[in-house]
């Protein structure tokens, strides 16, 4: 009985501190750009431990970031837009534009 009571009050406290799924989804995204205040961080972690869907959402957001990062730092070139860069000719063309503009002005 004592235990049951303790459990009940614990649940009450948890419900009070614990954010709902909607807030957890927002916090998951915010956590990728900034350090969350301790209370928010705790609420996020606690909720994620107990909620399968929020856990998936959180992990998947970070997985997407991880996969993007892997590519950005890998040497093997896949045909993706991230590999697009200025060709030497383009550089020279732009350079000429800049120089001619400078002459025009002086």
């Amino acid at each position, binding site marked *: 009985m004592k235990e049951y009571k303790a459990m009940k009050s614990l649940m009450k406290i948890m419900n009070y501190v614990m954010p*709902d*799924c*909607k*807030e957890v*989804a*927002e916090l998951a*995204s*915010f956590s*990728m*750009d*900034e350090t969350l205040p301790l209370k928010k961080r705790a609420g996020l972690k606690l909720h994620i431990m107990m909620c399968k*869907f*929020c856990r*998936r*959402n959180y992990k*998947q*957001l970070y*997985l*997407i*970031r*991880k*996969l*993007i990062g*892997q*590519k*950005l730092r890998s040497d*093997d070139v*896949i045909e*993706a*837009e*991230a590999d*697009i*860069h*200025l060709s030497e000719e*383009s*550089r020279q*063309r*732009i*350079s000429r*534009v*800049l*120089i001619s*503009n*400078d002459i025009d*002005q002086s």
Partner: protein
Amino acid sequence: MTIDAEHWLELYGDILFRYSFRYVKDKLTAEDLVSETLLAGLKAQSSFAGQSTEQTWLIGILNNKIMDHFRKSKREVSFDEAAIISDNIDEDFTESGQDSGSWKPNRRPAEWMVDTDDPVEIKEFWLYLNNCIESLDIRLSMVFVLRELEEIDSKNICNALSISHTNLRVMLYRARKQLRLCLEKNWIKAMPDDKE
């Protein structure tokens, strides 16, 4: 004067071009926008307040050029982040009742089985990712690309795009959410062992 621009071209040419090309999808047009950006940068040099890095300052200028380009070509795009922000109905979660704030049954994230070491899966991921980015509202796509693909921090993105920190958080949240769902519906579903 041109020395700065030549220096910028050297340092930031690739990122400016890559960013520009993603939106205009034509190498010559993208290149023109980079030239215009560097010229505008030269003229506006005195307005560079040092609040952001030189790189993000130039991206900010380029961003306006891209928007102008779309306006001229009359492509239907929304430029107004206020409109994106003010729409605050979150269709993923129930709005009332006992379950208020929890996932709607048909919106619950599915399980993803991804082998991050499999080059074929990764290649597929990039294909779908780029398509999904393209399906986003252009403002959402821009904040996502700058944050996750160009790895620019929030403060600099706010400066480059002239948006508030609060709006940026909301925009990134929406962008990530839509992308996650888009990847789940397309990339994850297309995986061969999905049926098990």
